């Protein structure tokens, strides 16, 4: 599903040039659950943003379902993103002015789903995430774990083929964290490909495979048993 070859990304700030990704290559097959690990600053988030088409690489190739997307413009990226990719962030990133229901509904609005259908789909997903009873609450009125469940709900509501999660449990206590990991595992079992950045060896154990990074390069891949 994903194949990156010699991906490079630099950040230039005034005098300093940081190499965030240094000729990085790997492949992720459809249905995989991959964890990306590495020390702080090694380029994990950068990688995830590029995979999520939120950012573009400076060099290298990125095949998404066999299509070269490295040189896509913003318009095309947004288009591809809204149909295929869901995001889960460390800091939940829900819109404070929208209710739980409305937050989850948002991706459907951008893909042009009709209102009546949206209601059905959103309720289904909220049910699955066991957050239905909070549908009319605002994010501020929820606990961290509940917020992340809403975020996961929003990530999957469009039925994306790929979910990218950047430290999804980073802001949660262990029991809430485990709950979210269970949700991701369930989704993966239903066929969704998942790439997750994490600092936690515990969380990484939910995945099939760990990609270890150092200074913008993969240093090792090990299969979890």
């Amino acid at each position, binding site marked *: 599903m994903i194949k990156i070859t010699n991906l490079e990304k630099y950040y230039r700030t005034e005098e300093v040039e940081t190499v965030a990704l240094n000729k990085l290559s790997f492949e992720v097959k459809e249905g995989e659950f991959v964890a990306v690990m590495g020390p702080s600053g090694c380029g994990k*988030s950068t990688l995830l*943003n590029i995979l*999520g088409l*939120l*950012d573009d690489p400076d060099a290298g190739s990125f095949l998404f379902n066999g299509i070269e997307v490295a040189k896509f413009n*913003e*318009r095309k990226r*947004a*288009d591809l*993103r*809204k*149909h295929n990719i869901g*995001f889960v*962030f460390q*800091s939940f*990133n*829900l*819109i*404070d*002015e*929208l209710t739980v229901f*409305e937050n989850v*509904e*948002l*991706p459907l*609005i*951008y*893909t042009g789903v009709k*209102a009546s259908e949206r209601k059905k789909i959103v309720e289904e997903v909220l049910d699955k995430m066991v957050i239905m009873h909070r549908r009319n609450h605002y994010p501020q009125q929820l606990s961290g774990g509940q917020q992340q469940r809403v975020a996961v709900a*929003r990530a999957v509501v*469009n039925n994306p083929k790929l979910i990218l999660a950047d430290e999804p449990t980073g802001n949660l206590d262990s029991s809430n964290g485990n709950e979210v990991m269970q949700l991701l595992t369930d989704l993966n079992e239903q066929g969704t490909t998942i790439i997750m950045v994490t600092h936690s060896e515990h969380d990484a154990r939910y995945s099939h495979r760990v990609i270890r990074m150092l200074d913008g390069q993969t240093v090792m891949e090990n299969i979890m048993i």
Partner: protein
Amino acid sequence: MFKNYLKIAWRNIFHHKAYAAINIVGLALGIAACLLILQYVNYELGFDRQHARKENIYRVIQDRYDNGKLSTQWAAGAYAVGSAFKEAFPEIDDYVRLNQAGSQVLRRGNDLIKLENPYFASSSFFKIFSFPLVKGDPATALKEPFTVALSETLAKKLFGSVDVLGKELKVTGDRIYKVTAVYKDMPSQSHMHFEALFSFASFVQLIGPDNNPDNAWNWDGCLTYLLLKPGTDPKKLEKKFMAVVTQKNGESLKQYNADVKYYLQPLTDIHLYSNRMLEAGANGDGKTTYLLMGIAFFVVLIAWINYINLATARAISRAKEVGIRKAVGSQRSQLIGQFLFESALLNAMAVALAFVIILAVVPLFNRLTGQSISIGQLGGGMFWLNFLLLYIAGSFISGIYPALVLSSFKPIVVLKGKLVHTTQGSYLRKGLVVLQFAASLFLLIGTLAVSKQIRYMKKQELGMNIDQTLVIKKPIVVTDSTFLNQLTSFKNSLEGQSGIQKASSSTSVPGEPVGWNAGGIRLLSQPENVAKQYRVIGVDYDYVDMFDLKVKAGRNFSRDFGEKKGVIFNESAANQIGFTKPEDAIGKDIFFWGDTLRIVGVVHNFHQQSLRDAFEPLILRLFPDVRGYISLKVHAADVKGSITKVEKEWNRFFPGNTFEYFFLDEHFNSQYKSDQQFGLVFGIFTTMAIFVACMGLFGLASFTTLQKTKEIGIRKVLGASVNSILKALYQEFAWLILVAFVIATPIAWFAINKWLEGYAFRMRPDTITFVLPLLVILLVALITVSYQTIKAALANPVHSLRTE
């Protein structure tokens, strides 16, 4: 999609009420001010548009040159141009002549009705101008001698109905005019406002067969309007005038070393751009109108800037939303649409509120500006068009920049929680704040300058005394030849009354243009071709004394010398005729329309008119029994009683005449009415502009302090005092205002001087005019900022640090 936009926009407005209120109220005030001014401007721009053939109607105006120097600019010039030009140029379809018929008294039963300024008009008047007739035939209405057309109101006043065709009207004395037409009252948006028009044929009869207007190239006072054939280029036609003038009148002009140029003035330009001798009425002022338009723009601009500033300042709090929306697939264009939609929503609320404000203040606005905008008029198409334009322009102008900024946020940056602290944005915000304050300073400096000029004009020595002076308008109905004696007896009888100190009669009084403009005047010893034009006032022996004019050389008129042929010059006149030292003029004889008159004295220049006007060469010509205004110096103690006595005498001496009087100082100061109104309007809109700007500053200060709350907390923990924290915050805003001052001052300086060009006597804009506004703005701004910052500075640091 829009439902979602609406939802989030609505909740944003609701969650940040203060922010929304600042925006909505500011925009509403700006829009209301702008619309009101535009309404006024539209009114001023809309004069004389009711005429079906307005595009083809031009007035012939006349510039007179003496010895190569421009001396007079006439609205009403030579009589002959109409017929001569029509004959010479096939491009001219028709022409109409109008000239003043002088004030008249009409009788209705026992009541006297005074006709203030009626005109004679030639028969094509109702063909060229589209003043609809209620009764009568436009083609024939003013054809015959001694016919008259009445306005609807006057017809009703005189006869109680408009069915008055063929009725006879007794006009001053016993001349009978036959009513041949009744026209709808001339609209207020017209440069002509005639209550009655007498046929020009009557005038021709009155002046007798020896005087033919068609040959009258040297009498002034005739308004001539031409109806050009469609497609005629007025500029080209104008160029051809000179040949005709030279052929018909060249010789006579050469004799006086004079020159006359004729121009075509579009009918629709008259109201705003014409201020010449003998206009058909007081016109408007294009400069003021455009200045007001500028102010309107400033006020609304300040409100738009508020929106831009507050929206971009708040961008940080919307950044996350942008990032999320992008992450879940929103296109940038969709986000731009969303933010424009929000500004459209806020602007919609603002225009609604603006409308309410307008409804509430229209009566006040009318009172202040002397306008008569009715609520009904607000329904006019132009109003709604402006309304819509302001709405659309406002939504777009205020919304587009924040929309572009917000939609440009990169999701990876904002979602990481790394708040964008764009220095670029804050520079722009500072730039806009500077712009706002520059505009406010400009307006404030302008307000001060206008009021200073008005004060200056009112305080200036006039060179004469007009206090305690009661002026009676001259009697119009004079039945017998003993009138002159009557006038003298009347004056004498008044002077005998207690409470009345002096009496004098004259053809003009101070506070108005001198109506008598005489050309061809020279020293007897000079050749004809150096003769020039002078303003002339016919005065009696007591005039100089009455107004306390200061004799500079020679003497006042005196009954002791038994002189009848004396003149007194003012300094300008003495100068113009060729004397650098006034005493040299004394005893010299001048040639005045065939008479020889002796200069007995020269008086210091005095302000016959407001200080807008320069001193003009003025001749006081002695007519011991001059018929004109009668001025009375009354004791302050019993003014009312004096008036009663005077009226009694008046009715005894001049039965059949209306008794009309005014106080000369009021009359004189009424010349400043339009200046004062302008100053007031200027001041009001300036206050509004500053208020709106400060609201924006308040909002901005709130956000800045909110961002700085943590900084303030840390500083306090580190031991900074409240004062030092306030100082740092004040400094930032003070700097912005100083920069604004540096920008505004030269522009204001330039604008003030440009405006003052319209005044012959000007105040000098001093340092205070510029520095005071700076201090005011600094103070107001600091107070505005203080509220938020003091709150933040006094807050317990533990609170602000904990909320992070």
